[in-house]
């Protein structure tokens, strides 16, 4: 699934480690989602949306 996680993270000046701590996941998980190697679960997608203060559909695009 396409997503804008890397761009949004860069806009806020967060490192992958910082975002991982905010989401309570590993840095590898953030990296896998950014590289579109892994699609997060719905609860994690909602946590990501809440962390960025955006609706889910502004972060993730349907394939």
């Amino acid at each position, binding site marked *: 699934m396409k997503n804008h996680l890397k761009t949004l993270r860069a806009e806020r000046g967060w490192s992958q480690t910082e975002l991982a701590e905010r989401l309570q996941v*590993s840095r*590898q*998980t953030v990296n896998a989602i950014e590289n579109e190697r892994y699609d997060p679960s719905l609860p994690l997608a909602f946590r990501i949306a809440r962390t960025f203060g955006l609706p889910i559909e502004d972060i993730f695009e349907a394939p």
Partner: protein
Amino acid sequence: MMKCFSPIPRRYLIELGAAMLVYALVLCLSIFLLKTGYFDGPSATLVALLPTLPCIAACWAVLRQFRRLDELQMRVQLEALGFAFAGTALLSFSYGFLEGVGWRPLSMFTVWPVMAVLWVVGGVIAARRYR
């Protein structure tokens, strides 16, 4: 402070390390007691099984670590364990068939190290898929 999901958390290392330390001590004690010759029959069986008690603590530490993993780490571990489970079945059954035609019988102690190696290999393969 935020919860950190490092690959091998300190808490896990402490819990598993403590369990393995107790295991090593109990194993030495068990071997020593068996060598004294005081134990025979059912009592020798019980003394020989003493090291399994700290192994239960090690299992508990591993399960606690699994519950601390995030969803991707959990998936990687699932794939790694699936690989190890299937691979161990394949190898152990294959060798069992070979024992039937005269190959040297192997100790049960060989099974888990094989599974552990396959677990590591499976983990590396699975982790690479999500890199």
